[in-house]
């Protein structure tokens, strides 16, 4: 990148950062458009007229005035299949994006993400163990509930192992998270190794999918994600301060350990709930906060909501590709986020950072 181009990119980044709320509004508008367009994508083609009528029929009071020119099958496909899957993408993408922004702030580390504190390995163990050992304790939702409980439990184990003298040191927490994750992943590998015939079902969970999300599992997860995301947003000033160093944060008045405790707990709760219904979806929690910072600057006041919206948009688009790229076949979404997402990230890194990561 030559000097002139560098200056042009820097000027663009500067201008975009001055219009923070316009950007967030635009991203939100883009999210709504993405949701509506994604309802068109699928093996059955549904005309726009029918789609709009189905939307109208779901709005209280308005439903009486909307013509019902669609078939029952079309309504079933939109309301029972596509809507929970797309809104599941919104909820899961948002929780991963917001969780990523919060965790990167606590660790002051741009390559950390929610999974680094043991969430993914714990949830994997829960899901795989429930399949392999045939748990039925919570009926048809046993897999989701065990994934949630194990994900949360492993984060608590990591947290308490990393606690020294009542304080959490970011590097120690990071190393403990990586070590415990390796240990738990080894148990998952052992379960897979000894039960080869179950690999197909398990792999789909490990690579992530929005396909099996229905309203019954989406409602409670959406409520958990909404509450935890708001709780994380309320910590945005404290998280900004922690990025300047724990001691600096304390010297400006932040209760550092309480902030870390609340944030880790909220991220663990929100992301465990999300991955319990989607399986593991990588990349979103790592990259969306960076994209938000490139567009809006580093303050978590803007990074947290923007990461949530971008995470949602990205995951819906990835799901559209996963459903649409090979007719009749749904590819695990984790494969799509990796293959499409990484080149996308590399492009933005080169274009928007203006060489800041090069020095």
């Amino acid at each position, binding site marked *: 990148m030559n000097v002139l181009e560098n200056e042009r990119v820097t000027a663009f980044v*500067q201008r975009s*950062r*001055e219009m923070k709320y316009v950007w967030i509004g635009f991203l939100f508008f883009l999210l709504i458009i993405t949701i509506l367009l994604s309802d068109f994508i699928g093996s059955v083609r549904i005309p726009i007229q029918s789609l709009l009528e189905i939307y109208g029929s779901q709005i209280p009071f308005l439903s009486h005035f909307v013509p019902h020119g669609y078939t029952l099958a079309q309504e079933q496909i939109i309301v029972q299949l596509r809507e929970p899957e797309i809104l599941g993408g919104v909820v899961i993408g948002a929780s991963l994006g917001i969780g990523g922004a919060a965790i*990167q702030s606590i660790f*002051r580390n*741009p390559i950390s993400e929610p999974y680094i504190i043991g969430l993914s390995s714990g949830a994997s163990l829960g899901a795989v163990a429930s399949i392999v050992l045939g748990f039925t304790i919570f009926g048809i939702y046993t897999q989701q509930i065990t994934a949630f409980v194990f994900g949360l439990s492993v984060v608590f184990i990591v947290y308490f192992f990393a606690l020294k003298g009542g304080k959490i040191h970011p590097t120690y927490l990071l190393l403990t998270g990586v070590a415990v994750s390796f240990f738990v992943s080894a148990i998952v590998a052992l379960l897979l190794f000894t039960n080869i015939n179950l690999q197909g079902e398990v792999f789909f969970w490990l690579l992530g999918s929005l396909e099996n999300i229905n309203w019954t599992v989406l409602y409670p997860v959406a409520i958990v994600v909404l509450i935890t995301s708001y709780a994380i947003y309320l910590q945005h*000033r*404290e998280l*900004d*301060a922690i*990025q*300047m*160093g724990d*001691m*600096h*944060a*304390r*010297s*400006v*008045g*932040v*209760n*550092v350990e309480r902030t870390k405790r609340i944030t880790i707990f909220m991220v663990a709760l929100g992301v465990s709930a999300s991955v319990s219904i989607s399986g593991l979806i990588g990349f979103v929690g790592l990259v969306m906060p*960076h994209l938000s*910072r*490139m567009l809006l*600057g*580093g*303050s978590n006041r803007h990074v947290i909501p923007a990461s949530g919206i971008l995470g949602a948009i990205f995951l819906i688009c990835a799901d559209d590709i996963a459903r649409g790229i090979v007719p009749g076949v749904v590819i695990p979404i984790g494969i799509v986020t990796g293959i499409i997402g990484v080149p996308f990230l590399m492009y933005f890194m080169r274009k928007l950072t203006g060489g*800041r990561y090069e020095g």
Partner: protein
Amino acid sequence: MKVEIENVTFQVPSFQLGPLGFSVEEGTITAIIGKNGSGKSTTLKLIHGDLKPNTGTVRIDRTKVSSLSSLKLAEKTSFVWQEIFSPMSFSVRDVMNVSGYKRGTDENRMEGALDKVGLAPFIDRDFSVLSGGERRLVTLAAAIYQDSEIMIMDEPTNFLDIDNQILIYNLMKGLREEGKTIIMTMHDLDAVHNLADSVLILRDGKKIAWGDTDSTLTLENLNKAFNVSFHTYNTVNGSSFVGSYNG
């Protein structure tokens, strides 16, 4: 606001500090000097309550520092750290906002604080692309913006060129006139001599001397603290200065 350090000791396996006892008066500048590793930064962290002493107490405004909440402590003290982190994509404004955590954002005061260090036009610049010296000036402006009665500074003129060092010295004098209490570590003995009202000299964690600058900053104490020979040199115009290197 008075700062009282009473019989404080601090011990880790490889280092022992103290016992230290001294009292810093309101509206004064106190300098802590000594070799690298003599315990200067540790003393500042003990005063600020970041480290817990093994024995003794630190009191700020007659309250034990260990019993102060983070918010109360931030109201009474600000800290200019030696190490400067560069948060991801933060602008100068974002860094300043962090120091306004307690009192909330006040654009005029923020610009005023930056103006004191000559960086008001930098308010929307990316903090990570500033030079080391500019970042140091921003952190000093942030401490001024925090507007606490006591300012603790760990080598505040690190990374600064000579004209910015002088800017900071004059800024400190101005803050003292406003009634602020400054406790700092510093290596530049000329500046310490000209600025500080009182000096604490440390060596290997032990107090060599404490008292007003003129009676403490003596050749004998300096020779003891730094293990090199200090001399008084006379310049051609008749003034004298203390130095340790004569080529």
